[in-house]
């Protein structure tokens, strides 16, 4: 067995830091005004249902906390075949 250690770095956000996180990326106002949508199902992203974010082709893509959405989102964020097109320029 090879013992080499290859890591996949996964960055995570602490549940109590969600507000600060949106402030730090300058999108807190958009979040509170309901302008950020889940790029899989189209639902409004809120502090409560926000699950993940990534950047694809320069656009920020968000995902809500539905299991079906996060499953699709995690594949797509790596560059999967199902291209998500709606996103937030930032």
């Amino acid at each position: 067995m090879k013992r080499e250690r290859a890591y996949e770095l996964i960055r995570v956000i602490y549940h109590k830091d969600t507000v600060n996180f949106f402030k730090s990326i300058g999108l807190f106002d958009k979040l509170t005004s309901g302008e950020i949508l889940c790029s899989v199902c189209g639902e409004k992203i809120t502090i409560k249902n926000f699950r993940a974010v990534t950047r694809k082709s320069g656009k920020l893509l968000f995902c809500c906390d539905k299991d079906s959405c996060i499953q699709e989102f995690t594949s797509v964020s790596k560059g999967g075949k199902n291209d998500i097109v709606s996103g937030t320029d930032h």
Partner: protein
Amino acid sequence: MISFLELIIELVTKYGVWGIIVIFVVIIIYLLSVILDEDKSAAWRARFYKAVYKISGKSEAEKRYIENDISSRINLARRNMPFGKEYLPKAIKVQWVEGGEGKTAQIKENVLLIRLDPAESQERNIVLLANALVKRTSLVGIRYILEEPLEISIDLNLVKNLLREIGNKKILDWYLRNEYIPTIDSSDEIKKWNEKIVEIDERGLFTRLLLVELDDYSKRIAGKTETKEMFDEIAGLVEFLYKISTKAYGQDVPLDYITKNIKIGVILVGETSKILLTGIEPYLKAFAYKTQQQLTSIYVIRWDKEFLGTTDPKIYEQFVEITKKLDEKILEKFRVQKDFELKYICIDTLGNKRKARISRYIPEYVSQ
């Protein structure tokens, strides 16, 4: 635990100071093995920070607990998932995004950021990251070819295996109830592929053969544009392994799979009486035939008869000896390299547990 304490008491009462010294040395060796193993030490850190969090309720302790618990559980579990010579999938490293006030969080292209739940929902956090890890590190280079139902079925079973290896029923149950079963029930196509993957997995050929070949396949087609033929090749490989996995006693199934990009052969040593009666010659002939077909990899799969070792130790010993001889003769007579050999326990089509062994041989003409 009680027998362990009894052993300590017996050692101290029987051997006095020497007994204490032996216990002390054993403890030191154990502590060293924990310190030198980053996953085991992460598990201890997780226990420590969990206790601190329970007492103090501090966010920093909660974060350290979540981070260490996820890393240790997933990374220790993946070490029990053989993928040919390697482990599957890659190890995970959890890094918190510091999005405090006045700080600017950077989100780079294709980097995934996941919001985790509080420590009280740690099962969900583990499932979330196991999912993300599998999707981002497995089937690399072929996801764009796979039709979604097959891709989902492979992912579902990889995550299930990873969570099963964690050995926590609560986590596995959460996954099966909330993700695995609802996803399978959502589509007939997923159900169809999933049934095949589960059968292949139960015979032990999912991570030890299918994923190994898919990994090789991704290297062979690197840079090529997706075609329907490529998906058909992969779907055909799954069907080929499914037929082998569901083969009834005495039933003939194809044992070679030859397409443009996949050329593999399988030799099954499943009937103990057959190899004991005929010896290894027929198997060597089959191996020679496969090398003539210019296959890129040849697998020899040995399934022991259930409980043979306990019911008839002598015949079992003969079986082990003769299969060992088969391996030696293959390496002696043919110009092949043994890529790996893995021992495992699987379940046969009748639901019986069987000891198994899979060896992969690569003919030298492949690497020339």
